[in-house]
């Protein structure tokens, strides 16, 4: 712990801890979706706090698309070891066999097969009845209307027109066998809250969030880091070394870097306050069509 929390961060923290405990109390087999990013880091930190001195009574699940930055995978394994928590890694092997990749199949198919279908496979395989996700309502318009406890049918589908009313901090956790609930403890946090909390609580994050000299190519206005040899270069492309960092982390061929000199958490916060673009702008998968996130979520995307 480094600095005392502001009133508003304390209230957000307490609300999230309440949500985490409520799930542990009322579900038989919960899991925490761990995507290695800053939001997951905060969510995991809150889980460590919620159940202290016990460990969180649920495992972490990472749906690995096999195209994450290598630094993310290293950070994931180190984090699980450092905190002594169970980590399940699931890969959609069927997708791998079919050769699905962001390069060969495009972002839509890759995301659908390796993320959405991979997630469904893992949830079915282990029979999880509740899954925590680090999504925030300020990220995207359709998320703004999603409940903290978001009901999913047996087919993992979300029906935005038929959501349960959610009042006070009284969460309806009742489900039938096969149905499940996605739970978003960070619903009321903003990107700024997340960074200020990481700063105040001294929470480790993947180094890719900090500026460094990295090999990138510019494609359709986005700076793509060539993390390994699998990303083919166009004839006219040569990776150039630029000082960049990432605001969000995903599959490396689908995640745009920004030019930045921010090497500390303080720098990141200052840079964000001056920024004129939203964090999801770096995500190439959201902008395919209007309402694209709502559509993906109805199909079971987190």
């Amino acid at each position, binding site marked *: 712990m480094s600095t005392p929390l502001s*009133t508003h961060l304390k209230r957000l923290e307490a609300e999230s801890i309440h949500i985490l405990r409520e799930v542990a109390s009322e579900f038989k087999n919960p899991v925490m979706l761990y995507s290695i990013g800053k939001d997951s880091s905060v969510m995991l930190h809150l889980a460590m706090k919620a159940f202290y*001195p016990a460990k969180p009574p649920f495992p972490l699940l990472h749906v690995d698309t096999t195209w994450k930055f290598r630094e993310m995978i290293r950070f994931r394994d180190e984090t699980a070891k450092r905190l002594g928590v169970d980590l399940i890694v699931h890969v959609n092997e069927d997708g791998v066999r079919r050769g699905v990749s962001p390069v060969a199949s495009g972002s839509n198919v890759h995301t659908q097969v390796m993320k959405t279908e991979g997630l469904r496979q893992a949830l079915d395989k282990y029979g999880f009845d509740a899954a925590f996700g680090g999504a925030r309502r300020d990220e995207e318009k359709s998320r703004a209307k999603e409940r903290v406890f978001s009901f999913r049918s047996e087919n993992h589908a979300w029906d935005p027109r038929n959501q349960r009313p959610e009042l006070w901090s009284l969460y309806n956790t009742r489900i039938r066998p096969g149905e499940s609930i996605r739970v978003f403890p960070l619903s009321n946090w903003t990107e700024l809250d997340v960074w200020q909390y990481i700063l105040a609580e001294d929470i480790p994050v993947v180094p890719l969030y900090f500026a460094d000299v990295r090999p990138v190519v510019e494609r359709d206005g986005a700076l793509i880091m060539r993390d390994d040899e699998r990303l083919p270069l166009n004839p006219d492309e040569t990776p150039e070394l630029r000082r960049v960092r990432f605001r969000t982390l995903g599959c490396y061929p689908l995640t745009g870097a920004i030019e930045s000199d921010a090497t500390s958490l303080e720098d990141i916060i200052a840079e964000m306050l001056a920024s004129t673009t939203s964090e999801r702008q770096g995500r190439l998968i959201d902008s395919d069509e209007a309402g694209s996130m709502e559509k993906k979520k109805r199909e079971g995307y987190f």
Partner: protein
Amino acid sequence: MSQLFATAPSTAALADAVSRKTLLRFITCGSVDDGKSTLIGRLLYDTKLIFDDQLAAIEKDSKKYGTTGPGIDLALLVDGLEAEREQGITIDVAYRYFATDKRTFIVADTPGHEQYTRNMATGASTADLAVILIDARKGVLTQTRRHSFICSLLGIRHVVVAVNKIDLVGYSHVVFAEIEQAYREFAARLNFASITTIPMSALTGANVTAPSTDLPWYRGPTLLQHLEGVEVEADRRAQPMRFPVQWVNRPNLDFRGFAGTLASGQVRPGDEVTVAASGRSTRIARIVTMDGDLDLAEAGDSVTLTLEDEVDIARGDVLAPAASRPEVANQFAANIIWMEQEPLIPGRSYLLKLATRTTPATVTALKYKIDVNTLDQLAAKTLKLNEIAEVNVETSSALAFDPYAENRETGAFILIDRETNGTAAAGMVLHGLRRATNIHRHASTVDRAARSALKRQKPAVLWFTGLSASGKSTVANLVEQKLAVRGQHTMLLDGDNVRFGLNKDLGFTDADRVENVRRVGEVAKLFVESGTLVLCCFISPFEAERRMVRDLVGEGEFVEIFVDTPLETCIARDPKGLYRRALAGEIPNFTGVSSPYEAPKNAELVLRTADAPIDALADRVIDALIARGLIEN
């Protein structure tokens, strides 16, 4: 006007500002036409919370869906779901976030139409303040009264009346003053601590975040200034301590902690606390957190407490000071808002969740419903979606609560439909009911075990359910004969027969059918207490009521027997000529014809009368009773 985070401040200034920052949760009420979404879009836009890529997206959308002519339609920023954008309405509650250097804000943006009352109540439940929009051209309307009433009902104490579109009435002071007076006259009937009236134009931005030169007669704050400065923290810390236990933390044999969120008050190590339901007292030993033990925890903090003594405590218990405990009762009066398509039926069993406790509950009396537009009290037998009523609630076990007006955390509850698992109602406790505390069960010396031992049998309810003419009474009659031959003590309650006496005041509406089954269930329970095997033949079309009777008696004492005969066969049999008359429209609410039958999903026994002779079916019932150990072979 406050300094916004338009440019990056120095790190030191940032850290300082951040540590003092407070949080305000508010709700905006009004319909599309009042400019509600435009107002929120304006707040986000003026506080620089709209990013370039989002702006580009809505510029594109403005051409497709926009309703404000050329230029950007700020409302599109907040209308998230595709259907809303297409229809130009706001269906669901959306939460929005923005910050200045003084406060961070969470805005619940809720729909204004009457059919979305439940969504508005949802947004209001977590809000400390309401911004109620009034179109300056229209003044105080029915919907203004409705929005204000719901906010007051949900315990919001501070209101801003935003008189919007003031530009369209020529920035008239007279119009503004008339609206303000009309609103204050009406709101005197409600429970608000403060009302602030502000003239503004969300479209032009006047008085939203910046004052306007077009309103020289107005000297008050802009909306944002008011939101930044208003004091809303009803001092939850000064109220008596309430700690609903959420999770028992037992990592090893040496540690036993009780985790939860402090609903009100403060707690320190050494404080004496009482478990509200059992009355057992002990002292707080430690307040445990990952950052080290605390000397003090306050309302809103999520902590883990350890106690000095080994006291039996589980999730759902409430810790409180011995001197000011919550009420503990199984009956209370409450206001409820109905939230499901399926109407409320008094007597039906629901699950009630209050703080961390979940227990079966029924609405025992519907005192009156409230017309949300006029606040008139109306007589009612059921409650439909979005209707509000005062009711009496009975829970199957006693629970600890406070009146909602005194404590939002320990006075609020939801009702959950046991069939669909949907959230059926939101409730606010008014007060405990005296009769619950003054009636105590009398324990008799000759108990049910003694009575059933005398009869050499275990008592049970054999519940025959099925369509009219399915053969329930025929099978049950034969089963009773066979039991009598075996020397068993039995009683048969028949649907038609009880309607000549016990239930002769009841008809066949859904509400009366529920009451019919409830009374029969209570009578069957009395026979079970006497050690008798009770055979009940009732159509009992609803799963919820069959479950209610099941819950009345003990585990293993309810045997549900579904007499499964196809409707066509029943119609063909028609021994009393009822189907003929029902199909001709002469009998309303006839099960299978004009009223639904919910077939049991988990009956202990299913008898298909089409497949086997009656005698064989009766023998199957006897075999089932032997298999369950209710009678001897």
